[in-house]
């Protein structure tokens, strides 16, 4: 009896272990402390308020301020850098306790967030490419303007859109937006005054054409009515660092220097080798995240897909219906929508936080699993019906016949599809950068936000994907041979 169930037991053990690993990873951070612990989100690139410094650690005015306040007020936090718009929504859905991301206090936002003491005065400015010859907003008529999703600057730009007659397009991070303008894909960008000026100071080839408008202030935000204790701590801590001069020191530190001082030697940016050396740790950790997502994703998706695929061929109408519904839904949904739904949508319904990596793995499992289920069902249906009849007529029970006779033949038919799906899974992990997982693609985005080396960094990232795919393909071929010879 033992032998029959070993494979089932083994796979079950594997699933529980992996799930345990994920849960364990996300909870150990605050297991050993009695201080209150919070999950706080920030933008991925919003220098000088938040950007990646050396070794991939986030630095900037917001970051240093938050860390000084946490020390003063005795709380700990886990920082989740994610696209601003997703972070802002994540706070509302309960995924994060608070956001500090150069977030302008507006009446609309005040309806859903509670803001702490305003900590930085700002205005909105527009910039164009110096080559464009544009000197004033009136010249934008009929042209496209680049905006960052969900920001106060975007809202302001839209409010004057009719007056100046421009079209708008949206980006998720400041840097891609600047590049769109610098490369001529958009005519102008609107951004907060200190952020845009800082970027230009650091080498972004843009020219400011307006005075700061629609002056506002940045605030630390929690969901309205929630996390009152955290907000009080922030305000008390902010007052303290303002009083003792820490705050002014932080601001002076960032506004007085180039990003390169925090992020590494700019000279290294001019060669691929230099970029690789300088960002070695980040590339490696991005690659490891991508590999983790891919491998765990493939394992879970295969288990899920085979189960759902087998349900499509068992002689039971309910199982058929269930299987085809699952395939229909999860194959039909775009991966990105599914990821957002699980990461941001579900927690706002259930009130339970899901770590990004778990949300990412669930997304991959469901989406890739649905594709696997479809070709598993197809492969099993392809096995001649006479095989099942012959096995059953010998007295083999249905599942034994399935496992010993149908599956081995079906799986052989499916191997090319499996290899294909594994490669697709690897590539699909890049989409998960949208929910803030710093995998290889997001690593590229973040590094470029610092050094503006678009071509070189994307070249490196592309090569790394190709290397992983090559390795995976070799592995698959080896497995295929082993299977085929059996």
């Amino acid at each position, binding site marked *: 009896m033992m032998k029959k169930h070993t494979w089932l037991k083994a796979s079950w053990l594997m699933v529980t272990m992996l799930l345990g690993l994920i849960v364990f990873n996300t909870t150990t951070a605050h297991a050993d402390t009695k201080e209150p612990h919070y999950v706080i989100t920030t933008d991925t690139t919003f220098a000088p308020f938040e950007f990646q410094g050396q070794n991939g650690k986030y630095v900037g005015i917001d970051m240093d301020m938050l860390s000084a306040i946490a020390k003063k007020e005795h709380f700990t936090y886990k920082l989740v850098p994610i696209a601003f718009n997703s972070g802002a929504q994540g706070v509302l859905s309960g995924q994060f306790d608070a956001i500090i991301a150069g977030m302008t206090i507006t009446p609309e936002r005040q309806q859903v967030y509670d803001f702490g003491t305003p900590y930085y005065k700002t205005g909105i400015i527009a910039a164009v490419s110096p080559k464009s010859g544009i000197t004033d907003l009136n010249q934008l008529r009929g042209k496209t303007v680049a905006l960052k999703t969900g920001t106060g600057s975007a809202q302001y730009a839209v409010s004057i859109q009719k007056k100046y007659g421009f079209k708008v397009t949206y980006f998720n991070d400041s840097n891609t937006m600047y590049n769109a303008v610098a490369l001529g894909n958009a005519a102008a960008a609107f951004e907060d005054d200190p952020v845009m000026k800082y970027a230009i100071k650091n080498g972004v080839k843009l020219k400011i054409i307006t005075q700061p408008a629609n002056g506002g202030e940045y605030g630390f935000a929690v969901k309205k009515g929630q996390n009152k204790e955290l907000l009080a701590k922030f305000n008390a801590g902010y007052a303290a660092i303002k009083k003792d001069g820490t705050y002014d020191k932080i601001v002076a530190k960032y506004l007085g220097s180039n990003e390169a001082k925090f992020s590494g030697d700019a000279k290294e940016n001019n060669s691929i080798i230099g970029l690789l050396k300088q960002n070695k740790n980040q590339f490696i950790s991005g690659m490891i995240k991508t590999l983790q997502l891919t491998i765990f994703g493939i394992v879970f998706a295969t288990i899920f897909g085979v189960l759902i695929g087998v349900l499509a061929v068992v002689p039971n109408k309910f199982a058929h219906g269930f299987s085809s519904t699952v395939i229909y839904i999860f194959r039909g949904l775009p991966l990105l929508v599914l990821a957002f739904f699980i990461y941001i949508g579900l927690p706002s319904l259930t009130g339970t936080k899901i770590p990004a990596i778990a949300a990412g793995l669930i997304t991959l499992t469901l989406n890739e699993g649905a594709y696997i289920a479809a070709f598993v069902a197809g492969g099993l249906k392809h096995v001649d019906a006479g095989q099942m009849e012959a096995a059953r007529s010998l*007295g083999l029970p249905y599942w034994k016949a399935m496992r010993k006779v149908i599956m081995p033949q079906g799986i052989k038919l499916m191997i090319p599809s499996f290899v294909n799906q594994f490669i697709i899974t690897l590539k699909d992990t890049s989409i998960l950068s949208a929910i803030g997982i710093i995998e290889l693609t997001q690593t590229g985005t973040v590094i470029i936000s610092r050094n503006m080396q678009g071509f070189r960094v994307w070249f490196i990232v592309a090569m790394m994907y190709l290397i992983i795919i090559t390795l995976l393909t070799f592995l698959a071929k080896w497995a295929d041979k082993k299977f085929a010879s059996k």
Partner: protein
Amino acid sequence: MVAKVSVTDLHKSYGDNEVLKGINLAVEANEVVVMIGPSGSGKSTFLRTLNKLEEPTTGSIAIDGIDLTAKDTNLNKVRENIGMVFQHFNLFPHLTVLENITLAPIELGKLSKAEAQELGLKLLDRVGLADKATAKPTQLSGGQKQRVAIARALAMQPSIMLFDEPTSALDPEMVGEVLKVMRDLAEDGMTMIVVTHEMGFAKQVADRVVFFADGYIREEGTPEQVFNNPQDPRAQDFLNKVLNV
């Protein structure tokens, strides 16, 4: 004495299409029953209901006194006792010849691996294929495949064997080797129910010939009775066509 196989008023429909319209048949132990008739007459469907590869619509089937249509019958146990040979062999292509034969006895805990292999080799010898134990089914001719399929069915040591047109998919020169194995089996006293178009085999081996047409048994008797003196007009017509070519 209880009949080995006892079928009472068996009906089978696919939607509105009734293919078995009330079949009654009793088969005694050690009896060889050959079923003949035109294509579409229901004889294969009938054979397949005997181990419930086809679910009967109404009626009852009893094998060794066990009612197959009863809900609490362990169908897998009953099937272990009924060997079946298919027109298209249905050997398992991913297994060797010997593994094809030993799979069921090992998986069902009937025999240890060593015992099953010993029996398998003995059966292969009996069907004249002792040298093919490690071959894959794709390396065999049609006739060899069908002999392996018979050995596979025999490995469960059944007391009844069902043959569903076992020679119809074979090249003519290979029919003889399969029929010889079947004849030997009959001589050893196996209870056999055979659907076939081989009239020679029916004449020589059958204890009883059953003629199917339009979902009914139209004629039934010894080979001499059925072949030499059929009473039913459909049987006369059919035999006239197949015997006088």
